[in-house]
């Protein structure tokens, strides 16, 4: 795992999207972190991001099929996870709805991910 820098990429119509990549950005800001946890996450189609192109350790937590999270579909969060490189992302699917699952076994899986960075 290299030194990671998050940066913001300007897009048309003053819209923004946060990237978590190694590549140099056009507008770099001092935002630095080692991992990202994305709960019920989704990616807006504001900019082109290739699949498997984001090299940042990530934990994706979202509702399992079918329709366990009525606000953000399983497919949508899975698409966000697919933007991250294989091998650096971990997926936890749960049946608790549109929340961060606060119980076992999910909480233990979250701890397992975090232990890598301690």
């Amino acid at each position, binding site marked *: 795992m290299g030194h990671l820098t998050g940066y913001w990429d300007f897009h048309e119509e003053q819209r923004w999207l946060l990237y978590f990549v190694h590549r140099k950005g056009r507008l770099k800001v001092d*935002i630095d972190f080692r991992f990202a946890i994305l709960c019920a996450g989704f990616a807006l189609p504001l900019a082109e991001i290739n699949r498997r192109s984001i090299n940042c350790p990530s934990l994706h937590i979202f509702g399992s099929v079918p329709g366990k999270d009525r606000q953000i579909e399983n497919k949508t969060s899975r698409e966000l996870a697919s933007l991250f490189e294989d091998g650096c992302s971990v997926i936890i699917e749960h049946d608790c709805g549109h929340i961060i699952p*606060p119980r076992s076994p999910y909480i233990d899986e979250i701890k397992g991910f975090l232990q890598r960075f301690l």
Partner: protein
Amino acid sequence: MLVLCANSEHLSLFLSCYIVTFCFLLRELWSECNSSSNKAGARPPIKLRILCMHGFRQNAPGFRRTASLAKKLKGIVELIFVDALHELPLIYLPVFSELECSDESSLSSQQFLPSTETCRGKLARLIAPDCKGRSVTDWKKPDSPFDPLRYQQQTVGFNVSPSYLKTVFSQDGPFDGILGFS
């Protein structure tokens, strides 16, 4: 014990030495235990600092309360919650009786809504282009029913976030990780 040993000087001397030695060893053992526990206690626990960003129509205290992650991950993380920048209109879901009849004397949701002066704002990182923010200062019913695909229309609001996040990172950082909800 001294009375029993009074007739034997040798036995008395032996026992005295035995007791003194025993006490000395006990004290050494006690101090060693204390020092080792002090060393373990003095070592600051290593915790991961995680910046937490709440979801739509929420705020930092609300996310801290509902996520309940700090308790579940106690000892390994330090969670720092920050507010999003965009304030949303105050809306409420009417109670069933309001939908069924228009009688003014019937039970009304308005009776249970907190004061808009003391109510903490509901915030968002991204908003719809036609969002007017908290221009209306009082509670109101939603214009349309809940739309599960609403998030797809929330496409503006990034323009003020980079400088804000930069400030958060410089003032409250460094962070080991970030956590975003929805």
